[in-house]
């Protein structure tokens, strides 16, 4: 259409040549090349993410035997179950507490590492990343042995100080503490490395100016470091919140949701209902319930990031 508009006199035999040159131009465009290069990934995501997402939406609208469309009936059913609200509450406690502690520990450790002389820093960075690079299913097994109801290594050690035995996975409060602790242990290095990268990008001149103005260490953090790290903190928190909300392996291996369902989170309860209880539509509904919660969090956090981006 654009060609015709530009050259109204162009008719007959000239058109195919122009079409060819248009295609060649399109292929030469950087955006086309970029699109073609990302196409395999787009197809992969469409197959492995978008299709399953829509399929689970479809499943969530079916009855237990998957023969009848029930619309939002599964959600209606879930809203009447006490256990569901217990799971919602626990998922929020688990994700928010774990993310807060991961961010806090990551922030503190990133500062420590940042202050280590450059020569020895690489070793520390490598060592501190170890929990994050071990597959959580494996590392959680080690934690399971440390928390084992009958043979806990922690309890054995504590017994020398006359403490315990502590029911790490047998009591609701301790079991919640244990799963959050393992999640924090696993996820804090990710925050640490992100914050360290952000810290390194803060210009030294700002600290020098703050020092000249007589700022103490807290004022330097509050007025220089934190504002410069805001965006990375927001993005990291959002990313971690999504991953932690959707966590499965740590809770599944450590407590399997017990005792008395007091450590179940969305993914583990969805698995219990959908796979172990053969009620796949209800399991799909439970797992989909995470979406609105995370969407609201994402909107708030990303909106803030955009704002600051514009201000900059």
């Amino acid at each position, binding site marked *: 259409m654009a060609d015709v508009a530009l050259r109204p006199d162009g008719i007959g035999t000239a058109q195919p040549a122009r079409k060819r040159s248009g295609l060649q131009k399109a292929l030469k465009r950087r955006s086309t090349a970029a699109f073609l290069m990302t196409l395999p990934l787009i197809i992969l995501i469409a197959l492995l993410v978008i299709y399953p997402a829509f399929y689970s939406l479809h499943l969530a609208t079916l009855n237990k035997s998957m023969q009848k469309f029930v619309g939002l009936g599964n959600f209606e059913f879930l809203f009447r179950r006490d256990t569901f609200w217990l799971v919602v509450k626990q998922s929020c406690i688990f994700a928010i507490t774990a993310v807060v502690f991961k961010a806090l520990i990551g922030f503190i450790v990133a500062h420590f590492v940042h202050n280590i002389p450059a020569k020895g820093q690489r070793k520390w960075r490598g060592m501190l990343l170890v929990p994050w690079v071990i597959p959580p299913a494996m590392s959680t097994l080690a934690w399971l042995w440390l928390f084992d*109801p*009958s043979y806990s290594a922690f309890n054995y050690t504590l017994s020398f100080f006359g403490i315990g*035995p502590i029911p790490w996975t*047998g009591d609701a409060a301790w079991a919640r503490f244990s799963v959050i602790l393992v999640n924090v242990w696993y996820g804090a290095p990710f925050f640490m490395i992100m914050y360290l990268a952000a810290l390194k990008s803060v210009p030294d001149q700002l600290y020098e100016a703050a020092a000249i103005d007589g700022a103490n260490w807290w004022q330097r953090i509050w007025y220089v470091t934190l504002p410069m790290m805001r965006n990375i903190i927001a993005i990291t928190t959002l990313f971690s919140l999504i991953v932690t909300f959707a966590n499965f392996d740590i809770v599944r291996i450590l407590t399997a*949701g017990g005792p*008395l369902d007091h450590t179940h989170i969305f993914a583990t309860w969805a698995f219990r209902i959908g*796979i*172990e*209880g053969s009620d*796949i539509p209800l399991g799909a509904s439970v797992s989909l319930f995470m979406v609105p919660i995370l969407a609201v969090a994402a909107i708030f956090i990303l909106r803030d990031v955009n704002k600051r981006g514009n201000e900059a």
Partner: protein
Amino acid sequence: MSRKKLTRRQFVAATAMSSAALITAPYVRGAYAAGKLSIGFWDHWVPGANKASTEIVNEWAAKEKVEVTIDYIPSQGNKNLLTIAAEAQAKSGHDIFAMPTWWAHANADQLENVSDIMGPIIAENGEVNGTAKYLGTAGSKWLGVPASVGSQIKGPCSRIDLMKKHAGIDVQAMYPVGSEPKADNWTLETFLKAAEACHKAGVPFGIGLGETTDNVDTAGAIFLSFGAQLVDAKGNLTVKTDAVRQALEFYKKLISFLPPDAAAWDDASNNKWLVSGRGAMIMNPPSAWAVAKRDAPQVAEQCWTHGFPAGPKGRFAPYLPYFWSIWNFSKNKDAAKSLLVQLSKPASIEKMVVASGGYDLPAYEKLTTLKVWQEEGPPKGTLYHYPNPYKHQTLSIAASPAPPKIAQQIYAQATLTKMCLRYHQGEAMEKTLAWAEGECEGFMRS
């Protein structure tokens, strides 16, 4: 470029030969003339046990000219359950699949009716026990052939020495090798006294209260011994009954004699409890004893597998069968049925049971007295009463006799152990019952 001309005679000859080849091709028995068959067997945890199934299948395949592929799928991490769910959704996958306990019923609409082969199998092997029927049939349709591989009874495995010393019970005399049990006094009352005595002696019974199957199975058998059902066979709620109250009262007393961390136990905890020598009894198939044989022989020598204590309404033991089922999307159902018949021959069953060291249990009444259970040891005869040779106890599954689709929810959600734990932790009886009733109402959604 020269081109050879096709004569009319040559054309007629070629056409005739091609037609003859096409017509006769199906009748030529090549190496895999009867097609392909893929099987998803349960991956046995007894080393070498898979070999027996592979040999039987390969022998059959060579005879029947079928190309077979076998996948051994473990139940660790519920990998087999995930595979079942995926194949049911995709309507594609293996032809035969080993379905554990509830999964034949859960996929009943997608399974081939095998009633036609079950008739002759039962005629040869004897009647099938009630739990295998409850889990394996929908109306008059058999949803799978009861598999010996993986099927188990989770009865008591007691320490001979500790039970004698602390509870004054001679389990070998109660369940002697080669003869009927003399266990009239082996009741829940005696069991509770023994639990108290062993607890006092520092070797408590290792019975868990977690949400995994071993814990649920024990609770299920004890509830049934009191006649306690949360939902009856017709699907009516029967939570608020005296039988359920009695079962809860019993469990409350029992829990005070169990290890304090029992609420956190999983299916490995009781095994470890026995092997480490810390307890006088666990409820488990002989896998724990088999591990003890390897890792703690002095413990294994003192182990005796026997029957459950009887309650006011009878003596029930947890039985968990597997079924070999054929998906209705299988493209080679005839071959699949032929293989299942072969796997259910008494000789095949015996071969698989021997390979499992006596762990596997056939569901058929004529096959509960195989030699392997008399000979396995140490101590010799420790497994003699494991297959329930004298029908001394009723084989059952927790949450039965509720309709299987409801019972599966009660079982998977561990409603029974949760009730026991809630009541033991101080919740009022009626509040616990109301909670359980609410849960069961939810499980009834169709």
